């Protein structure tokens, strides 16, 4: 198992955005939400130390339909959100979701992400890494 590391405040975190969340070129704030249950609950991102934006884009079912944005860790902590390195290992491929593989970069953003104020502020903070319209290669 990979160790859990402390993420520096200047680190970029990559977050995938499915094209359906984008309307007339603008990201809908509903895209910012936590997934999972209990201790695994969080907004899933990838830490730049162990992932490129391109690798992050490929960690989903339909990479062609997804873009990637980034947040700076310091900005998220400034909103009172926790940024917690959460690497995981998949020993057996998940039958229904074979694209999910071990991920040392995985980082959970925890807190009141779904709050309307926080979501509007997240819209201010992100920067595009890869637009969904960009070809894979």
């Amino acid at each position, binding site marked *: 198992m990979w160790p859990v590391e402390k993420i520096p405040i200047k680190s970029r975190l990559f977050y*995938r955005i*499915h094209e*359906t*969340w984008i*309307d007339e070129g603008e990201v*809908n*704030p*509903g*895209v*910012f*939400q936590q*997934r999972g249950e209990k201790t695994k609950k969080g907004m*899933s991102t990838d830490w730049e130390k162990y992932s490129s934006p391109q690798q992050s884009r490929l960690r*989903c*079912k*339909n990479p062609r*339909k*997804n873009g990637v944005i980034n947040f700076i860790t310091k900005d998220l902590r400034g909103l009172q959100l926790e940024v917690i390195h959460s690497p995981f290992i998949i020993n057996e491929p998940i039958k229904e979701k074979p694209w999910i593989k071990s991920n040392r970069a995985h980082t959970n953003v925890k807190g009141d*992400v*779904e*709050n*309307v*104020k926080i*979501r*509007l502020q997240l819209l201010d903070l992100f920067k595009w890494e890869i637009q969904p319209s960009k070809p894979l290669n």
Partner: protein
Amino acid sequence: MIGIHLKTNEFRFPKHGYQIWSKNSKQFFKNGKDYGIRKKANEFVIYEENPTVTLKNTVTIELPSRFYELDREVENSKYILALENDWDDEGSVAYQEATWKKAIQFTSNYAKWVFDETSRVIPTPKIAPGPNGSIDILWKSPNYRLLINIPDNLKKQASFYGDNYSTDTIEGTFNPSNFNQGLLLTILNLY
């Protein structure tokens, strides 16, 4: 009923059909077809049908024709109901019809209320999928922004936050069916 001067005003015709009558009530056009005698006239009176939004052949809302853009946005937002479970490949859930109806009924009632109170047509918001089966209603301009979230659990309160991108902010929760509507008017009017 709206009076216009054709020489000076531009008018976008409503999608639900229209009739143009000359001031002395001789009909000229109906739904784009030319009827009657052409006649030089600068002033017309236009009668419009109120646009409606229907779902499964049932009228969900009816708006005065001046809310043409809002009607169009509500129509466009129907795509939300077609999103199935896991529509974004990240596990997002499908949206319930009741949540969408609550969102559009709140928006249209609010628009009508503001017009009745102030004679102003509110800017058209974006109606969008929210997190966890909720619906977002977003007003965004260079001067202000306001986000309202209608939860999928209709017993829960809606939440809102707005600001002028600076120090003036407004936030809270409310019951979409029964609340102090002037509260939101503050931000839509001020900035």
